[in-house]
């Protein structure tokens, strides 16, 4: 509305004053997010954790080295040589924490991508087409929701005995896409009533094109927030499963596998340096992801003006 008003009030000017360019919703969200202190600190922390995990090998030692059992260096307290000390098999805890972070984060990111992709696909299809497609897909989603997550991951994992990390990604993804599907469906159903969708359809856009080019960009903010929540949940899922012994194979360091050492009373009682580092990094990583998620939610919400 503004441009027309400004033109009317200044008819004498030779050149019409260019209206100030209004910011896109994305730019607005970015500005709001950058001003959110908790979210920004969390983002820096998360990036730091990611960077150190990725650079685990140059920073410490190759992953094969971390698996080597060193009987002369058993359960050493933190020192200049081993920043976080060594565990009961004489393996450097600092190096294992970094390498563990790489595995845990990589797994969580892969699962999250799979979950979001699957959930969005199902949700968008159901929401866009409606009718019997919606009915069938949502019945299926409701059915999948009945299965207790942890229980079925463990059951499925015990069927695939010679399992790799790939199986784990598959099993967890298959059981966790339902929430995203429901969310995306409800958003798509609301969004498709808009006129721009009708015009896209009437000029002959195919269904996939309408969904991917016109609908999804407009529900993207919801999907991004959902992805952050999922990411935190998946880190917990992976580490919890590894901790119980149903996740990543024991020889690969992950935060969950490292924490498994704390199940022996001796380590838990008197060798705190073996389990506190992965526990602390894990908790603070999830905390920072939660803050980022909250910041994003806030930034995308036009009603909030913090």
């Amino acid at each position, binding site marked *: 509305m503004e441009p027309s008003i400004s033109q009317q009030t200044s008819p004498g000017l030779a050149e019409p004053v260019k209206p100030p360019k209004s910011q896109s919703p994305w730019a607005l969200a970015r500005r709001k997010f950058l001003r959110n202190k908790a979210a920004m600190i969390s983002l820096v922390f998360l990036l730091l954790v990611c960077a150190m995990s990725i650079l685990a090998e140059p920073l410490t030692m190759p992953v094969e080295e971390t698996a080597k059992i060193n009987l002369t260096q058993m359960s050493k307290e933190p020192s200049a040589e081993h920043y976080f000390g060594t565990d009961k098999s004489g393996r450097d805890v600092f190096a294992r924490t970094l390498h563990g972070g790489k595995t845990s984060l990589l797994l969580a990111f892969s699962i999250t991508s799979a979950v979001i992709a699957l959930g969005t696909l199902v949700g968008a299809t159901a929401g866009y087409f409606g009718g019997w497609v919606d009915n069938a897909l949502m019945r299926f989603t409701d*059915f999948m929701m*009945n*299965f*207790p*997550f*942890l*229980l*079925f991951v*463990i*059951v*499925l994992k*015990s*069927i695939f*005995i010679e399992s790799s990390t790939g199986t784990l990604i598959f099993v967890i993804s298959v059981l966790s896409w339902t929430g995203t599907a429901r969310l995306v469906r409800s958003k798509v159903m609301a969004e498709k009533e808009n006129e721009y969708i009708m015009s896209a359809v009437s000029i002959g856009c195919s269904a996939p094109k309408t969904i991917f080019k016109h609908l999804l960009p407009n529900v993207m903010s919801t999907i991004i927030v959902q992805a952050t929540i999922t990411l*935190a949940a998946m880190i*917990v899922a992976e*580490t*919890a499963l590894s*901790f*119980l*012994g*149903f996740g990543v194979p024991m020889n690969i360091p992950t935060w969950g596998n490292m*924490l498994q050492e*704390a*199940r022996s*009373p001796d380590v*838990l*009682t008197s060798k*705190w340096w073996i*389990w506190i580092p992965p*526990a602390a990094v*894990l*908790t*603070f990583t*999830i*905390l920072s992801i*939660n*803050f980022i998620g909250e910041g994003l939610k806030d930034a995308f919400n036009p009603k909030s003006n913090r």
Partner: protein
Amino acid sequence: MLQYTIRRLIGMIPIIFLISVVVFTLAKLMPGDALSGKIDPLNSDPEYIEEMREKMGLNDPIPVQYVRWMSGVVQGDFGDSFIHKRPVMELIGDRLPNTIILGLSALVITYLLAFLMGRYSGRFAYSIGDYLISAFNYLALAIPSFVAALVAIYVFAINLGWVPASGSIGSGVEAGTLEYYLSKAKHTVLPAIVLGAMATAAYTQFLRNDMIESSRKDYVRTARAKGTKESAIYNKHILRNSIIPIVTLLGFDIANLFGGAIITETIFTYPGIGYLFVESVHARDYSVMMAITMMLTILTLIGNLVADLLYGLVDPRIRLS
């Protein structure tokens, strides 16, 4: 209401049927079968095993086996445990009371703490106490339950020595005595707090936000204008409205508690259903595994129904149909 409940219960039958098909299929995919539980370890003669298989009907077509298994399940017979050499239902019956005690304690602690903290935070929003509670909530929501359990054991059981670190009952305590109940309570309190921590944080935050929102509503202004005491406004008018949504979450809690019990019970070596499940997975005791899976899935279904029913019960605006 009654009609709706009955309709929902009838609607659950085909879903339970489908779930049983899934569970049975998974059981068939697993290495080992019902025979493994009955086999005599001293007699592994292939001919004898084949004879036993034939006798037990394990060579019948899959659908026939399914019908037989299902008719057993309907009568509460899940077969025998391979490790414990006992009927599965007996085994579960032994452990179930422990899990129920743990779950109920967790529920009571969750709702009590969430009520007290949420009420305080909602009334004195943006005070130091509120910020402290918020900080606790963020931490409780972020910390994975198994890490929380480790920290709790480390601090309260090992360093402070207030409660035991594992088990569900002290050794040499006689059932029925006061000592027995005290020991039971002492063993249960720590896992119960850990099990309920995440829900506590979520409900506290929920109650707080709802109270802050309510305090800006017209009926509160009216109450103030009439000269109602501030404490009465909060305790009577606002709290009553804000407590409703939390009660409806009870149904979801039921399913979540049993799921969460898998992790908590394992760490505290608390002999309940969750620990039994993990034990039987490690020991490849499939009949126990499948029975627990089936039970907990049905429990989830019931939990969802309870949540829906409570929702309609406490909020008359929602029509259940």
